């Protein structure tokens, strides 16, 4: 069949060309550089004020991504909260990788208190990033978090093993099949894809 061509073999190069052709999305969200090149290439930084998600199957490195962001930001003097309703955060790993503990707040609410706690942390405006590990929320709760994030100009990173696609977050990163794929309103043009090794250490 004429008039038809096959997909170019190097998809990443083509995506880069697409990004170069397309203007950056117009928004009032600014990107805070994370100090981590792999992440900044994928997402452009930490979006503020915004809610974003990172999800993938168990063992895919979702918690590792959150830990690395916390480590990089605390090293740079930014305040980060780790909300841990399952009480599974390992401070030893955070310290082993060189995170600055004086800038980290470890919050361990009961699952029923997660919504309120996250809202308070975001609205206070004193934290650059709030990381929520393995929690569930409905759309109404997410909208309340969005309002709180805008009030405090904060960023909420939601880590989990299930997709957040239905939550209409600013952006979300899927870790799957050896790739990290960023999608959403905060990602210019089509999905951005990078090899998993570049966002997981």
């Amino acid at each position, binding site marked *: 069949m004429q008039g038809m061509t*096959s997909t170019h073999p190097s998809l990443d190069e083509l995506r880069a060309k697409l990004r170069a052709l397309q203007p950056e999305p117009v928004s009032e969200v600014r990107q805070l550089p994370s100090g981590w090149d792999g992440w900044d290439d994928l997402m452009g930084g930490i979006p503020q004020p915004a809610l974003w998600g990172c999800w993938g199957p168990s063992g895919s490195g979702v918690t590792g991504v959150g830990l690395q962001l916390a480590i990089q930001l605390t090293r740079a003097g930014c305040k980060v909260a780790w909300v841990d309703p399952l009480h599974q955060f390992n401070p030893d790993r955070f310290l082993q990788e060189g995170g600055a503990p004086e800038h980290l707040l470890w919050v361990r609410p009961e699952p029923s208190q997660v919504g309120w706690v996250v809202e308070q942390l975001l609205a206070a405006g004193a934290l650059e990033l709030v990381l929520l590990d393995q929690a569930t929320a409905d759309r109404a709760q997410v909208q309340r978090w969005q309002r709180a994030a805008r009030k405090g100009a904060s960023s909420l990173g939601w880590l989990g093993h299930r997709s957040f696609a239905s939550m209409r977050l600013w952006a979300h990163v899927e870790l799957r099949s050896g790739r990290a794929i960023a999608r959403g309103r905060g990602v210019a043009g089509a999905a*951005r894809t990078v090899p998993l090794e570049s966002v997981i250490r």
Partner: protein
Amino acid sequence: MSVLYAYVRLPDFPLERCGYSTEEHLALWEVRHQISKVTVVCDALRAYGIQPGMSTGEARALCHDVILVPRQVDDEREDRRELTRTLHRWGDRVRQDGDEGWILEVGGLMALYGGPEGIADHLRAQLSSLGHRVQVALAEHPMAARILAVTGEPAWSERAAADRLAPLPLEALPAPEHWIDQLIAVGCRTLGDLAALDPASVAGRHGPAGRWWHQVVRGAPGEPWTATEDVQEHPGVAYTFDDEVHDASVLLARLQAMIEACSEGWAHEEAAPEALRLELRLANGEILTKVVRRHQPSRSPGAWMQLWRAALSDGRLPAPVLRVHLWPVGLQRVQSEQLRCGERRKVHEEVDQLVERLRLALGQQTCVQVQAKEAWMPEQRWSEEPGSQGRAPRRDPVQAQEGWRARHAPSAPSRLRRRPRPVQVRLEDGRPVAIRGPRSWAPVQPQEGPIHLRHGWWTPGGGEERCYHRVGSHRGDLSLYERQGLWFHQGWFD
């Protein structure tokens, strides 16, 4: 030749925009009537018998390694707008047609690209370089170009459009089904048969819409377009009717659904439009535009529908409607607390006050800070409360040996159990090969270990020795196990 249209079709756009290649077993799903249904399927999955409309469970049953990705209609629409902007580099006469097509008027570009073949090649090359599979066709009428592109005909031929269309089956015409059935009933099988009919009898039997389709297949050139406005200012929703719409009440019902859908998006953006612009594509090829405006921005579907009912109150449409496109005009922020770009962060509460408040509300142990400690055992290397380190650890005689701990300490898992969980382990050559799960033994793959950790051997009691193993499960995730007589699951590397 003064008027020439190029039709660009990206048949796999929803799949390709997700970052997957068409060779992968990818299907997109949406929730419809509370059931997760597959809506887009790649060619590889069609070979397994998976069709749009199946439930995700049925798709999994037919192909166990299917990759199911939730479809994001809003993001997809945004990507299409980005692609339209890219095509606007070709000129100001670009229109999106349906979900996978774009029409460009390219009559003035022939000298620049060396004729129609050059234009087709450049269009194909540009969109292929963005990672898309492309079908392109050029003709003197946009509908003829669309039919040729969809049926996979060559992009261009020196023959007249009527000759290129003539051998195609009648079903290639994107006309209402009942109309096609009527033509088949009178013996038409191809577009050439339709073109051979007498124009007056077609117009008499099928009305203005029939005459318009007849002109298309006879190779009539299309009307020159005026420049389209910048698409960036018109994010909207479009709907193509399955059949021609003659009644304004049907149109109003569709409009209400479209405004309700838009309203949800505006609420999410905390914005509201000042006016709504409606573009109706009529069966006679004309495009009718109507605008309603309010004195202040609103996102209430009821308020907008009042205005549309008034605007379409006579209930008569100049010609049957094929497609409607609705755009918000003058979207404005409606929440005053929205931060502007570059505005400084507003700190409403300092961290100390926030921590104090959370502790009062949830308990002292709910909100803590971590402090590093010097210790050998992993669980003793940190403390929760600042200043609660207790007694300083006894000086270690091996501490002077540079890098000892760095070389021998196991890397810490990112997720830790509150308490290590005892597990049953089956060993082979001293390394774990299977772990007892809730129901049965599960095979595991030892990755690293044993990693020995011993401290206090210089004390009279002999100190303590531990042995760690990094083990991969059959699902591919890594865990840390500790052997201290019994085996314990410590945590996960996630």
